[in-house]
């Protein structure tokens, strides 16, 4: 065991709130900066979603101007992906990875801080587009040309230009982060922390960040080319000038499909950490779970055309990518079965973190099954671009990812804040979220099968019933954030002091004080066993002194 090194001096540093508003290079400060910033954007994106659900309460287009509606779903998707899921997961990884592998900080602390400070910059650029002529981008978060380069306002500064600038900066920020994470994990592990002693979460982050390194340049290049088409008269994608708009779709999805795995892999990692702790059992089949993250990352690079089954893609291409898409489900299935086997026969403690993880897993399994359906080309030709797809990816992005993130925030809250959260409020938050999410997103499946298309601001009256249910669920989800915010702020200020390891969890991050001191470890521990020794008596580490004896 490392010792309690939370001396007065360290404690003062840690508790100084001004650090969170500065160009700090401490990975824990940066982690929390990411998480808080992205949560604010999450609330903004959620507000857009509620306006969308408000419009869809009735079949007619009667709440928002059609162009405002189009701006809303464009900005909702963009904000939720690029300013919520990506940065919040980057924030968690920033906080956890160095602690978990026994490092004092990330490999490049200043690069880390620079990458974070780009987030508010591109966030402000994106949101400022509400105030330029023509309003924000209205081409959907895919920004397919030619509609994305039509520029009806005719001005040089327009919503689409700001959108493309924001995406490009976001891409650069994430590439900087990816370089940092991969280097840190490969180079900065504590002595004895072999690859197969790394927590599965670290494996997942490593796999996700490798995808970022290889995939993001394609999207970023595509965005720059589109920007040139929009503003500087090039014709890469403009069909009226001989360009090819389908080429952009390839650029876009070559990254943006793997991006789904960049998002979901760390959540898989969260599951792999949370389940063993609250089931008091080792992660079932740890090595296979760890390797399957890399397998998913590998296969995910070869599936992007499944977003384009109904697009300008010939039959042979549809068939090839159907095969690769189906393959992804195999390593993913391995993980799901491993988690179920982990909790099977355990000693379960259903606190907020565990409830969120279990709820997220159930919703993920559902989205996995609808995902297989979508991977089948003939079915996809019917449901492509319908609410079936919208339901599917909201089960992934809200059900699995956002609820998985909540599980992580509750699980590591005592470590981050040094305080315990309020369990009652936490469980209320879970209940509202789980019910709200299912009410909101489940009805989208029958709507899609019936043929209701996504991105429509008005629809035929036959679709009204399920839309009303979905809207009620949406407003419930909006309300569900209130107990969370109350809990986090209240507990951070007045919560009970948290011990170093309130959950009796195994892991290096639980062996330092809560919150951990600057530079984490007084003395870097030597790791002598695997990360999930529940039910075994083997210690995780020995101290440097012992090794010298």
């Amino acid at each position, binding site marked *: 065991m490392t010792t309690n090194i939370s001396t007065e001096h360290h404690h003062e540093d840690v508790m100084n709130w001004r650090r969170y508003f500065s160009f700090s290079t401490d990975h824990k400060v940066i982690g929390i900066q990411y998480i808080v910033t992205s949560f604010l954007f999450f609330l903004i994106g959620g507000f857009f979603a509620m306006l969308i659900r408000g419009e869809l309460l009735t079949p007619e287009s009667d709440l*928002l*101007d059609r*162009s*405002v509606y*189009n701006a809303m779903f464009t900005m909702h998707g963009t904000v939720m992906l690029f300013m919520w899921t990506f940065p919040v997961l980057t924030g968690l990884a920033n906080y956890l990875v160095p602690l978990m592998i026994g490092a004092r900080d990330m490999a490049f602390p200043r690069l880390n801080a620079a990458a974070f400070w780009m987030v508010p910059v591109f966030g402000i650029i994106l949101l400022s587009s509400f105030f330029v*002529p023509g*309003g924000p981008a209205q081409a959907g978060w895919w920004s397919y040309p030619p*509609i994305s380069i*039509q520029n*009806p306002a005719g001005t040089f500064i327009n919503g689409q230009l700001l959108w493309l600038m924001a995406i490009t900066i976001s891409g650069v920020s994430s590439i900087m982060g990816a370089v940092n994470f991969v280097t840190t994990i490969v180079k900065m592990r504590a002595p004895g922390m072999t690859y197969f002693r790394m927590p599965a979460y670290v494996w997942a982050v490593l796999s996700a960040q490798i995808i970022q390194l290889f995939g993001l340049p394609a999207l970023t290049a595509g965005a720059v080319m589109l920007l040139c088409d929009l503003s500087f008269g090039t014709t890469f994608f403009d*069909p*009226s000038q001989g360009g090819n*708009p*389908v080429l952009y779709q390839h650029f876009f999805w070559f990254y943006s499909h793997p991006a789904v795995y960049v998002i979901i892999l760390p959540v898989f990692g969260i599951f792999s950490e949370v389940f063993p702790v609250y*089931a*008091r*059992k*080792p992660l*079932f*089949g740890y*090595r296979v779970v760890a390797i399957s993250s890399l397998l998913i990352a590998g296969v995910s690079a070869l599936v992007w055309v499944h977003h384009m089954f109904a*697009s*300008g*893609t*010939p*039959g*042979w*291409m549809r068939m090839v990518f159907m*095969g690769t898409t*189906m393959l992804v489900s195999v390593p993913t*299935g*391995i993980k799901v079965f491993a988690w*179920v086997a982990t909790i*099977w*026969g*355990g*000693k379960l*403690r259903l606190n907020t973190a565990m409830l969120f993880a279990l709820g997220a897993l159930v919703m993920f*399994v559902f989205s996995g*099954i609808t995902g*297989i*359906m979508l991977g*089948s*080309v*003939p*079915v996809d*030709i*019917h449901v*492509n*671009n319908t609410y079936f797809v919208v339901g599917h990816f909201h089960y992934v992005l809200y059900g699995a990812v956002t609820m998985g993130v909540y599980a992580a925030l509750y699980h590591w809250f005592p470590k981050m804040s040094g305080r315990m959260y309020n369990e009652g409020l936490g469980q209320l938050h879970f209940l509202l979220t789980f019910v709200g999410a299912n009410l909101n997103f489940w009805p989208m499946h029958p709507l899609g099968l*019936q*043929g209701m298309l*996504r*991105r429509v*601001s*008005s629809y*035929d009256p036959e679709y009204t019933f399920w839309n009303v249910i979905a809207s009620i669920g949406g407003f419930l989800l909006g309300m569900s954030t209130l107990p969370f915010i109350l809990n986090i702020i209240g507990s951070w200020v007045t919560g009970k002091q948290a011990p170093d390891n309130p959950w*009796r969890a195994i892991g290096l991050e639980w062996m330092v004080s809560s919150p951990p001191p600057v530079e984490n470890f007084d003395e870097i521990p030597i790791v002598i066993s695997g990360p999930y020794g*529940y*039910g075994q008596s083997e210690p995780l580490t020995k101290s440097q002194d012992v090794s010298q004896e």
Partner: protein
Amino acid sequence: MKIIDIVILIPILIILSVVSLWMGNQSYHWFPPQASAESLLVDDLFSFLVTLGSFIFLGVTGAILYSMIFYRAGKYDMSDGPAIEGNATLEIVWTAIPLFLVVWITSYSYQVYSQMSIHGPMDILHLHTPIEIESANAAPVEEIVQPTEKIEVISKQWAWIFRYPEQNITSSELHLPVNRRVSLKLQSEDVIHGLYIPAFRLKQDIIPNQTMDFEFTPIRVGKYRLRDSQYSGTYFAAMQSYAVVESVEDYNQWLKLAATQTPTAAPNQAVKEYTRHTDRAIETRWPIVAPAKPPLVNFHD
């Protein structure tokens, strides 16, 4: 595995299978009517996927629920669960079975897609061999009458025009003869659109500057929604029309009727909204792409 476990497991598997099969059967009711030969194939495939999916979903969530109910730790129970780190046999089984299932799903889907033989964009790349199979006529439909009906589809922001080249007439609705193979030529004048008729289970993006072949066989008389399925800008939601499937006699009569009418401007929702102020709660009047003029067609409703 103890005998008692097997005795418990077998009825559970039987119940799961029965429920899953029932779900698969139910799934036919989740769709619009089956109005094309292709829709029969797609619905069978979907039903098969629902059956498999239900089995897996109920199995996995059942195991999770069971654990949540029966494996709760007592309030003061601080002990750990059994230190089981894995089980090679189990892990091989749950890798092999999904692998087998996805190969099965993929080959079944491949067969269905081949049978549908909807063509779509074939000539974008010249390096492939088209998937040659018995054409969609292999669909289990009686009385498919040759030859195919050729119709041109022109899409623009935000209107549909259906042109019947042999009779040289145009319409704002897609009229089709029942039980006859239809061959569409899809074109767009501005941005990417998509042709989608939910009752046919068919959809194809229309890429500007390309002509795409698209084939199918309507099998049920009726009037079905036809929509733009690829987001095309401000009035995307208003870009809709109907596919009207008629008996061959009615269809021929309609062609004759349309030929006698002089082209007039079809009513157009996008133009209507663009030129007239509406009273929505939030109204910004941001500049938007102006809709194309309402197309002049021989027939509109």
